[in-house]
């Protein structure tokens, strides 16, 4: 039933989009990938397709959606036995945006919970420099998805600084594929374009079950003219607190971005989580965790990227393990309506 409604909704959107101006061509973007990870003596594989649908409707309206179709293939008993697979489909967002004015966009529907920067900006498989999310990234995002409405935009925007904001309310939903928690939250950021530096802070109040506040700060720095980046977050909730910080440097200044060396990108990430209190269903590690990771990404032509990383996971009251990850991602983008390509 849900699939039929979605299909009808999608077809209706295409109809509306076709009827509008030719420049409102809907696009299908996103990523596909195949990942493998070995933690200790357990290896698993994940084929993933994450399509993003964007349908502009006139000057003010926009419909956006992203799904995550993922398989999880592992041995029956962890490290022994035949391989077996499970497949999952997740509707990550399906939102209607209305650009009310230059400083305000109103969003309704299902959206990625805007807390910090990982969930909303970096979680796409073709963006994330590592395969997996930092352990503490589950703080303040209430499962990752929210059903409700959101206001967002740039309060002040000039060539020296941009002050951006997001505030939202999410309702409790137990509908299959549309699960969400009853929460309220906000995020405020200051971006300095000349420095490529953004800092911000996030807040979320959970309004059901174990009611609690989550707070966090984030930092993102992409120096202008330099193919490098530093990103990080710190967050705290009743469950615990933690941080992650990662850096990457594309070697494109050695012979250009298309040279053999210039396609390489060494990356580093450090993350820690400190458990304060066990709260069921918070999607966080049950004990303290520390994991430094080093990786090497290689950007092939045609938007294909190879990933490899090694990390050592230190877990309180348990055996430390090595974590090896290898993967390949493909990023795609094409128009969904026929027409001339200029």
């Amino acid at each position, binding site marked *: 039933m849900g699939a039929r409604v979605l299909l009808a909704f999608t077809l209706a959107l295409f109809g509306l989009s076709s009827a509008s101006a030719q420049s409102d*061509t809907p696009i299908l*973007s996103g990523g596909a990938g195949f990942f493998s990870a070995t933690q200790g003596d357990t290896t698993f594989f994940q084929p993933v397709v994450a399509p993003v649908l964007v349908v502009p409707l006139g000057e003010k309206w926009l419909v956006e959606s992203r799904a995550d179709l993922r398989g999880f293939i592992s041995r029956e008993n962890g490290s022994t036995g035949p391989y077996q697979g499970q497949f999952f489909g997740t509707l990550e967002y399906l939102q209607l945006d209305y*650009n009310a004015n230059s400083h305000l966009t109103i969003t309704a529907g299902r959206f990625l919970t805007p807390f910090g920067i990982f969930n909303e900006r970096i979680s796409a498989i*073709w963006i994330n420099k590592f395969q997996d999310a930092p352990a503490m990234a589950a703080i303040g995002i209430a499962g990752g998805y929210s059903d409700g409405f959101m206001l967002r935009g740039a309060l002040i925007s000039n060539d020296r600084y941009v002050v951006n904001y997001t505030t939202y309310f999410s309702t409790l939903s137990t509908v299959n594929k549309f699960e969400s928690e009853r929460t309220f939250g906000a995020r405020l950021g200051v971006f300095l374009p000349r420095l*490529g530096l953004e800092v911000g802070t996030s807040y979320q109040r959970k309004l059901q079950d174990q009611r609690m506040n989550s707070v966090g700060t984030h930092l*993102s720095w992409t*120096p202008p003219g330099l193919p490098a980046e530093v990103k990080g977050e710190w967050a705290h909730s009743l469950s615990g607190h933690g941080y992650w910080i990662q850096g990457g440097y594309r070697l494109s200044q050695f012979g250009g971005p298309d040279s053999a060396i210039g396609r390489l990108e060494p990356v580093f990430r450090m993350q820690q989580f400190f458990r304060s209190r066990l709260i069921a269903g918070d999607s966080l590690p049950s004990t303290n965790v520390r994991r430094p990771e080093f990786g090497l990404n290689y950007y092939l032509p045609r938007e294909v990227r190879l990933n490899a990383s090694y990390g050592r996971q230190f877990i309180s009251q348990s055996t430390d393990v090595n974590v090896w990850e290898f993967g390949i991602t493909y990023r795609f983008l094409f128009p969904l309506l026929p027409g001339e*390509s200029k």
Partner: protein
Amino acid sequence: MRRRIFAAVVLVCMWSTFVLAVAQTNAKRSQNDSKSKPSDAATGSQTDGGKLFQANCGRCHNPPESISPREARAVVRHMRVRAMLSAEDEKLILKFLAP
């Protein structure tokens, strides 16, 4: 444990020095690039739209290799919501991608 922390700090310092040295050496090279492909914005397009594209798009991900003018409008509208762009910035970026 202290040795490890010391080694990590030394490595980070060496890495930062290396990056800054390379950046200064290559700064002029990247400033002279004036192509309008999105991926070239990463090396410093001179247009306002190109700069905005790189500053806002590059905050989260690498620019795509190419975007056709037909795709540009939807891409920029999507980006306006994600990156919280103003309407003026949206127009400049659209002009850069689909002149």
